[in-house]
């Protein structure tokens, strides 16, 4: 018997909480790890993203000083390459996991849920592959036009 059984004397009997016959509660801990990942990546993203927004939008002349030469100057430094690469992967996985939760919450039909998740995973893969490729293959001496 598993969780609760009604005995012959009509009293409710429960298995002891740590009884070894208790069924395995979960088949996988994926949701636990994704919950933890949201908090850990979130903490890192607070620094990475707010730092990025402050530098790009507010510091000096903000967005008005950004052009190809500005990007070339930044990606000449391994520090900013690593910053942007970490930000790309953490933000994409954090945001993708958030959207996965939202799809699970609001999609009413299994087929809708399935196709929305396919769309989500394809766009995540596209952005991760493209973004990583751009950071690693950036060429400051590319022809002007």
């Amino acid at each position, binding site marked *: 018997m598993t969780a609760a059984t009604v005995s012959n004397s009509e009293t409710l009997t429960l298995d002891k909480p740590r009884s070894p016959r208790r069924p395995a509660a979960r088949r996988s801990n994926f949701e636990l790890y994704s919950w933890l990942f949201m*908090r850990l990546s979130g903490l890192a993203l607070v620094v990475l993203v707010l730092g990025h927004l402050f530098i790009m*939008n507010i510091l000096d002349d*903000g967005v008005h000083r*950004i*052009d190809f030469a500005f*990007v070339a100057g930044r990606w000449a430094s391994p520090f900013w390459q690593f910053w942007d690469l970490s930000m790309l992967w953490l933000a994409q996985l954090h945001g993708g996991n958030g*959207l996965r939760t939202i799809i699970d919450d609001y999609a009413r039909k299994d087929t809708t849920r399935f196709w929305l998740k396919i769309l989500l995973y394809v766009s995540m893969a596209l952005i991760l592959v493209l973004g990583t490729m*751009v950071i690693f293959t950036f060429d400051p001496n590319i022809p002007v*036009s």
Partner: protein
Amino acid sequence: MPTTASPPTAMAGTSRRSGTLYIGDPGMWSWVAHRITGVLTFFFLFVHVLDTALVRVSPSAYNAVIETYKTPLVALLEVGLVGAVLYHALNGIRVMLVDFWSKGPKYQRTMLWGLIGVWVLVMVPGAYFMLQRAVTDLFGGN
């Protein structure tokens, strides 16, 4: 004493609006806002990686697209983006404190008003610096 929303005081049935309309709790709205700001940021990230990828096409292609980021209308949208991301970050810290700090649940409401205060304090000068150029572009001045 319950610390959630106060119970409806008006007589039910007198009006569709008085006392029977569920207006939620600040905690619920903070959760709604967290979802909305998160989704908006995710969609922007998609566009932003695509526009940055133009550095692999040519400097002129990248510069042409970046010029649109400097127009007054898009500058206003950038203030919205920074506001959304800042809210999401501050409320995310609040969620972590509720989850991991023993006194987090007790102070969750105080932390919500606190984060709104920090948000306003950061966004006022932030919006000023981000829109300075747009205002002078639109209305002249020196």
